Every structure is written in structure tokens, then in C-alpha cells.
């Protein structure tokens, strides 16, 4: 009936996720959109890192590192 499997008129850009009309002559990824999309894809990894980093900061080594960093910051201020 269609001659081919129906295709969506729009598809998200594989790089930045922006909706792009099929056959559009040019699409340039906007840096902000690109960053948002990539951060969204990594959201679980980022959340895991935050969790692990927070846990490390609660250890003796983490507390000491935070104290040293704060001391250095005050000295530079």
C-alpha cells in the first residue's frame, strides 16, 4: 500500500537528540543541546559517581582531603 515501511517525517539527531525533519538539508547540533543530551544519556553514571564521591568524602581519607582543599582555598584567598 505504501510501497515501503512508513517512515517518520521527523527523527531525532543521533548526536544531540534534536528533532530533525527528514530530508532537511542541514542540521548543525547546538552545543547546549548536545551537552544536555549527552549528560542525559550519562545521568545514571553521574548519579552513581556523585553517590560514590559523597561516600568517599565521608571516609577518613576523604575528610582529610576536604580539609586540605579548604585550607589551600583559604590560603589562596
Amino acid at each position: 500500500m505504501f510501497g515501503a515501511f512508513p517512515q517518520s517525517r521527523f527523527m531525532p539527531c543521533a548526536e544531540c537528540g534534536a528533532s530533525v525533519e527528514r530530508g532537511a538539508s542541514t542540521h548543525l547540533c547546538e552545543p547546549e543541546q548536545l551537552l544536555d543530551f549527552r549528560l542525559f544519556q550519562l545521568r545514571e553514571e553521574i548519579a552513581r559517581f556523585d553517590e560514590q564521591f559523597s561516600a568517599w568524602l565521608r571516609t577518613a581519607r576523604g575528610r582529610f582531603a576536604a580539609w586540605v582543599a579548604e585550607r589551600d582555598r583559604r590560603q589562596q584567598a
Partner: protein
Amino acid sequence: MDVKEIARRVAEDPWRGKLDEVLDLVADDYVMHAPGAREPFRGRDGYRQFVTAYLTGFPDATITVDDQIAEGDIVVTRWTGRGTNTGDLMGMAATGRQVTIEGISYSRIADGMARESLIIWDNLALLQQLGVIPETVPAPTA
């Protein structure tokens, strides 16, 4: 407010943070027929349930009315929906992808309120854009 304006507001405004205001234009006995839904959405609660499900999946969703034709109490509205899938959509995990969907609403407006709507949109395109089903399927070979 004429029937076209009511149909336009019912289509566009819930996605502009005006869901509660739009409910004033939805009749108690409103019935919405939507593709894939086992049962029609009924009344203001049904309308809210429908909008909320899509707003959960696409918090920045917008609907833009492209064209309308009215005859008596019937309004046909052609629209384009856009949104970014940053929330779970009816059990499907968020993809972060932006989608653009075209659809048509066939609505009956009486006594200043929406009474019944048949809404058809390109669900195949939506699912392709979300990557839920393949963008293309190879043609069968003999």
C-alpha cells in the same frame, strides 16, 4: 468564544501550564477516544489523566494548532506536538530524545464546552522517534 477557539484552547493550553484553566472548557460528560487506549477517557478526570501521562514523559511538551475547520458544533483541528522525552512514558524509560508528532482532533463542542473528541496521531512515528521500534524495516524478499 467560538467553537474553533474552544477547540484550540483545549488542544494547546494544557501544555502551557494551564491545565486547570482548560478544565473549565471540558464538560463533565466529556469523552475522549485516543488510539491505543482500551477505554475512552471520560470527564475532566479522564482528560487530566491523559494530559498528565504525556506531560510525565514530555515535561516540555507543546501542541501547536496548524489548521482548523468548523461546521456546526464539529471542529477538526490539525496540530503538531513537540517535546523532549525526559520522563518515563507509560512504563518506557526516558530517552532524552526530542520528538515531533502530527495529529488531528475531531471534536464536538456544545454550550461552550468540549463534549467529545476523537484524537488521531502518528503513533508509529512517535515510537520510531523514541527508538522503541525500528526506523525502517527491510523489504521482504521473494
